[in-house]
């Protein structure tokens, strides 16, 4: 870490927070420190304090911290409203560092820690002792903080201070609010569609505010939001689908490193991407079986109609321009085939590429009267990967797969124990891609139960083997399972 960068962030220097290029340098140095912290934390979970890898990585973390402490006086890592602050400046993550951010944030929160402050005089051995105690996996938020403090005292850690998480950081009713936001989005979109048809102004300010709320929910618990996209309302397919696309696009855009303002624009674009379908006759939209050529021609007009509607809206100026891109381009393929065909433009906007990926994913995982088979979420990713580079932008698709995981949230899985579960959260670390957290919904005998949340990365301490492994993904439709009910049940708790 660059000492001078951190020095600018010392508590005494906070009134002169860096801006512009200085802020960029600080971000770079801060993220480096965060990565070192993360690496040592992960190693400390697996190895004892005498392990070579632990010692080496601990040495590197200590070097960074010692240099920073010499310059800044103190180094404080703080959770504030779903983000991480280093000496009062917010750290920003990119697509490559999202997993580390999420992991460190979770590590602090699950231990009931709002801030960790490293103070001058911190020796390497003391840092290693701190990391070893901190990394223990059995900490839970309820009693975790007190026990953690006691353990640190017992380990003789004197130059690291912890601050207990405040009420402000413990968000109440998180899932319930997220689910309400989901349904509110449908209400608002329905109202927007119907206002458009009545030629009345659409409440763009409300949409924007809604998108901001969606962003906040994604920051707070992306896994639950992804879980909500399992909700499939077949009667209001377009509305439900548009909201799902909006949620997934915003989450994906966040992974890609888009700014908050860009994410709101992306969310709005995704939200209105199928506005043109209001002009497509319902008997075509819902026709069982194949469309005739004439019907297909009408169907394929919806991107154009959507874009046209948006540009003619009275509130057009308050809409992001990219909403028009997305409405018009979300059926144009990566190789520029698809529809509509431009006469001149030879590229497709980034937002359109993002929406295209999530649009197809949500569409093919939804049961429709005209399709013989809908795909499970895991199958959908595989099917889409086969069209990487032709239908989809390969890098965006890969980022999407990275976000969704090999077994996306909401995937119904059978475990090697015979239990059946629903993927509830992903393990952000690459080595554990196949080991998400699973809500057990049926025991080994097939009886439905309100089972525990099982972390598939957990091992039997005696045998060193994983306690549970995914044996196979299951088709929920085959077993009459409505995956979304399990997420809604969480919200109703």
């Amino acid at each position, binding site marked *: 870490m660059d000492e001078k960068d951190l020095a600018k962030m010392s508590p005494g220097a906070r009134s002169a927070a860096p801006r512009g290029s200085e802020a960029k340098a600080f971000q770079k140095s801060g993220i480096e420190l965060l990565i070192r912290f993360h690496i040592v934390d992960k190693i400390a979970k697996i190895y004892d304090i005498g392990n070579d890898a632990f010692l080496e990585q601990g040495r590197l973390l200590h070097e960074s911290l010692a240099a920073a402490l010499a310059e800044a006086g103190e180094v404080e890592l703080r959770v504030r409203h779903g983000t991480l602050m280093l000496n009062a400046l917010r750290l920003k993550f990119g697509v490559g560092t999202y997993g580390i951010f999420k992991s460190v944030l979770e590590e602090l929160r699950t231990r009931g820690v709002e801030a960790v402050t490293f103070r001058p005089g911190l020796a390497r051995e003391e840092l290693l002792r701190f990391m070893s105690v901190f990394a223990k996996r059995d900490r839970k938020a309820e009693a975790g903080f007190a026990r953690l403090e006691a353990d640190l005292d017992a380990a003789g850690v004197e130059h690291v201070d912890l601050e207990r998480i405040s009420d402000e950081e413990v968000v109440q009713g998180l899932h319930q609010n997220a689910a309400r936001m989901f349904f509110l989005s449908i209400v608002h979109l329905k109202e927007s569609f119907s206002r458009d048809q009545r030629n009345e102004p659409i409440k763009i300010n409300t949409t924007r505010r809604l998108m901001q709320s969606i962003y906040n929910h994604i920051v707070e618990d992306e896994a639950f939001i992804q879980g909500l996209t399992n909700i499939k309302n077949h009667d209001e397919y377009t509305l439900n689908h548009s909201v799902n696309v909006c949620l997934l696009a915003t989450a994906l855009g966040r992974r890609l490193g888009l700014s908050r303002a860009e994410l709101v624009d992306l969310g709005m674009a995704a939200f209105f991407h199928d506005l043109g379908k209001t002009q497509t006759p319902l008997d075509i939209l819902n026709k069982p079986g194949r469309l005739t050529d004439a019907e297909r021609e009408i169907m394929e007009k919806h991107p154009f109609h959507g874009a046209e509607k948006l540009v003619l809206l009275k509130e057009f100026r308050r809409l992001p321009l990219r909403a028009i891109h997305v409405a018009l381009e979300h059926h144009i393929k990566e190789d520029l085939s698809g529809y509509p065909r431009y006469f001149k433009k030879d590229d497709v906007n980034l937002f359109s590429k993002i929406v295209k990926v999530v649009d197809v994913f949500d569409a093919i995982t939804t049961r429709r009267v005209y399709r013989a088979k809908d795909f499970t979420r895991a199958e959908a990713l595989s099917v889409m990967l086969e069209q990487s580079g032709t239908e989809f932008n390969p890098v965006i698709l890969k980022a999407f797969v990275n976000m969704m995981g090999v077994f996306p949230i909401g995937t119904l899985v059978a475990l090697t124990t015979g239990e059946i579960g629903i993927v509830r959260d992903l393990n952000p670390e*690459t080595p554990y891609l196949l080991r998400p957290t699973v809500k057990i919904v049926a025991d080994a005998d097939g009886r439905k139960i309100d089972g525990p949340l099982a972390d598939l990365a957990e091992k039997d301490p005696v045998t060193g083997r994983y306690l549970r492994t995914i044996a196979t993904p299951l088709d929920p439709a085959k077993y009459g399972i409505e995956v979304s009910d399990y997420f809604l049940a969480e919200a109703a708790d």
Partner: protein
Amino acid sequence: MDNSQNPRPRDAAGMGTSPDAARVEKVKDLLHYLANTVSAMKIFPSDHATVRNFVDQLTAKFADFLAVQQKLQVGIEEFTFTYEGRPVYSDEVAIKSLPFFFFKDGLHILYFYQGLDRPEVLDFLELIKNEAQRPAEDSDIVAALWERDFPNIQYYAPDEFLESRILAERRGADLQRPDLPGLPEELARETIEVRIDASKLTQGRIDLDPGDREEILKASGRAEEETPDPGAPAAETRESGERSPAAAMDPTLTEAELQALERMVRSNRTISAEEEYINLMVEIVFLEEDAAGCRASLDALLEYHFDRLQRGDFQVPVLIIQKVQELGRHIAGDPGKQALLGSFLKRTVSPKTVEAIKSLLEKKKALDWESLLGFFGLLGAPSLGLAADLYGVAPDGEARHKILDFIERTGAPQPGLLSALADPARPDLAREIVAILTRLPDREGLPHLSAFLNFPNREVKLEVVHALGRIRDEMANRILLGFLKDPDEEVRIQSAMKLDPGEGGARVQQILREATAPGFRSKSLKEKEAILSFLGRTRSPEALAFLGRTLRTAPIFGSRKSLEMRLAAVAGLESLATEEASVLLQKGAIGRTKAVREACTAALTRMPTPGKAKG
């Protein structure tokens, strides 16, 4: 989760410990100062000394408080700010009340954290000012705070506000429906509730089919065979490919892919919104099959065109016209759409254009004349009138020079359009147009100078006459002859003086008819001299005979007019400058009329030696 930065109030209802009086006083003082600073900013610009002073003081007050307390949490009620449950600032005049300004958009709590510095305070104040100045339907302080994402100013705005707004908007729409006379009670009280029958999730069984059971058995066997090695979990990813096809790939993005993504995101940020919008609109027009729809899209584009013109952003209109012209070429086989595009292009030139530019000039906005004239250039000849209008309002010589240059370039192929730009109300431009017409190659502008024969402005006509006089050309002469009938004497005189005698006998006859007409004698001496001088310059025998006769006609009781005729004949003979003319003048120099004698003597003195005279 709430639509905010999401902090939850710890003691919003005043449940915290009793604050000490000094601290409360500090908060009161600070919030009063905040309100006063916002008021000052609504009156003065941000760099005004008064505002600077307010911001300095406010920053100091924040720093002073936060140095001790680390955080200031301000509760927001309809017209009141609270601190630890106690009212600390109130203003019940909704239109100016700062608490109400926050409250109306659902803001419940503001948090200020240690680290708040002057730039952040100023940004916060600017944000309030800007939002307050926006139209009500556009303004939302919570959305603005969210977007600005201050590091040390956070807020709490519960999602319930958004929920009630969305439901109210729906109810409002329902109320306007004619088929819905009254709002049902349950709808009026409606909120979104998430309900689920949890019992169905824990009752019953999931009986897997044999195929899935077989998969479990196989996977269990594989798990048993695995050697426990906590250090190498990554290998599992590849093995699991057969279980889930997506697992066959490692979805971790490579460095090259990360860089590709970064490039995409960066490039997305550098796209010109204007150009993208135009591109999209042109594509929409291309795709549109319905004429009414096409017209509507073009209208939207036209509106954008004028909007940009009004902002002085002339590059956008240039782009619009270029793209529409390009589309026009592409759809050459679609006459209906071609006509719409043609009509669109015509409409891009309208009095609104000049009004927009004039308005910019009135606002003393520095115009990018190059871009503006580039825009006119695309429009071609139809823009000449606009350019002419702007010439009169251009702020300086340089701008005028550019406009004239444009007019000359654009009007050259159609000089008739140039002469049409000459407006008596704009004599300066008219004189420049005369100069341009005169400069045009191959004398193509010459015939169009006749357009000035009926021009009311004397200076401009004289400019034309002088210009014509410099051109030895039959066409120029014909126009000059036309000017001999001008109501303005000076114009007639100058025209006569500039007339080229040439070789045309017809012209001599015309002037002789004029000179012998009854009215000629009534003209001034100067004009008579000018016309008879022209006659002399023709050096024709008829002219000599007429001039000699006129000089000799000396009635005993001659009038002033008769005298002037003779004096004018002297001038004509001087111009003739032949031996015969000299003889006639010598005779006149010894005549009985003193004035004639003197004139003839003076003329003979000035005359070159006969025979060497020009002509």
